[in-house]
């Protein structure tokens, strides 16, 4: 069996979550890697939508930015930025919003704005919201992919850039948010899903070779573990080949 890294496992696990024929609003970085891997693999009819206005992009390598020329060249349609947000994202037409995060909390709220308690005097100024708040609000469901550590997985985010499940089950409905919010978090250690009763992120699958203690130690809150904890199948040869070809083409 081929060796693989934990980052490769993460990308493969994230890609598998995308079903063929779905539409996916793709954030740059890890989400884009996963979405492109899915499209080149088991989901050839996955529609990739980038906030630069590219609908149905079919890049042959991993885009370095949200607005790479190849995204436009291979798209079914290129529309303006206002149109992609207003006509395509906002009405809830898109199945999955695929996001990264700088901080994620136990209810799936995302922070990409500031680290530290004081917005005016942040410890670290992050890039900000981009398209994420409305992607998180409007897509039918949201997948989040990021590397797991106590720095990134926190009890409560310093700043809610993109709303997940707020303070727990029912918050989205109370706010009138149409989509289901984060239904899956993929990390380099395993998968987490919101508990059906509380919406608290719960470890549901471990990647091969990862121990529960390891994941608990890399999480900034007292992580709950599902009773029927599963194990992610290891990346197949085919998955790794496609992923590595994509990465190579982009180097």
């Amino acid at each position: 069996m081929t060796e693989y890294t934990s980052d490769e496992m993460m990308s493969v696990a994230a890609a598998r979550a995308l079903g063929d024929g779905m539409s996916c609003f793709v954030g740059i970085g890890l989400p884009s890697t996963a979405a492109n891997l899915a499209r080149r693999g088991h989901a050839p009819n996955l529609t990739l939508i980038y906030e630069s206005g590219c609908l149905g992009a079919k890049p042959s390598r991993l885009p370095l930015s949200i607005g790479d020329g190849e995204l436009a060249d291979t798209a079914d349609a290129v529309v303006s930025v206002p149109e992609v947000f207003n006509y395509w994202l906002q009405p809830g037409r898109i199945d999955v919003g695929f996001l990264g995060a700088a901080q994620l909390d136990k209810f799936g709220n995302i922070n990409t704005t500031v680290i530290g308690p004081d917005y005016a005097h942040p410890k670290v100024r992050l890039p900000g919201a981009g398209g994420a708040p409305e992607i998180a609000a409007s897509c039918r469901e949201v997948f989040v992919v990021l590397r797991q550590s106590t720095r990134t997985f926190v009890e409560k985010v310093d700043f809610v850039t993109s709303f997940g499940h707020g303070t727990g089950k029912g918050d989205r409905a109370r706010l009138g948010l149409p989509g289901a919010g984060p239904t899956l978090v993929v990390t380099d250690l395993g998968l987490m899903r919101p508990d059906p009763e509380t919406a608290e992120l719960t470890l549901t699958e471990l990647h091969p070779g990862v121990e529960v203690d390891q994941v608990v130690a890399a999480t900034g809150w007292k992580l709950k573990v599902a009773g029927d904890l599963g194990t992610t199948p290891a990346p197949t040869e085919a998955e790794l080949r496609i992923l590595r070809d994509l990465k190579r083409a982009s180097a």
Partner: protein
Amino acid sequence: MAELLSLKEAVARLVRDGDTVALEGFTHLIPVAAGHEIIRQRRTGLTLVRMTPDIVYDQLIGAGCASKLIFSWGGNPGVGSLHRFRDAVQHSWPVPLEIEEHSHAGMANRYVAGASGLPFAVLRGYTGTDLAAHTDTIKPITCPFTGERLAAVPALNPDVSIVHAQRADRSGNVQIWGITGVQKEAVLAAKRSLVTVEEIVDELEPRPGAIVLPSWAVTVVAEVPGGARPSYAAGYYERDNDAYQAWDAIGRDRESFTRWLDELTGVKA
């Protein structure tokens, strides 16, 4: 009808200290040369507007041109942070930088309202986020038919909007293709506008995916070949990814940035 001027004349004519200035271009066609000319002409006190401030805004901020930034995502795409932006926000260097922060959807709609002659736009946005708590430019609004609550954001009407395009004809009609972002809205929302172009041609051949900004909707056109580098211009040149990488080291500390700035502005060390 748009006037055809040199970049230097155009910036001298259109951009004034204290102006609200938007340079737009979504990864593609970023008007970098125009940004550098603003630095060279040492404008100060600008309110800079841009959905995705990247390295040219890092440069404008580091050079002290800006006192405020209105934006939705500030970073060096595919590389990391904007160090001059961070230094200004966290340590007021070289001057304090006020920020007004939105989401992409909010910014895009603010330009749409500006282009449409409306005072505000309505969107499903910001719900549950902490963004609204830190700005007075996001307010609730109620649908008069359904009673539903939505978000309102005020129009953006920059004093000057600057975009880069592939071509203009001699009458100043502008043609843009590929990812066109929010450029049309930025130009139409502005009191004055500058379009830098790769080339001025006798006739604009119709092209798939191209939009045309009629000359009478543009104030000044300036021919600036390569004016979007290190970003790209579809049909002309590719994105210089190495330059984005290299900026990380230059922007990271004040000293290396100051050397870069001196070189740009022709100051001898």
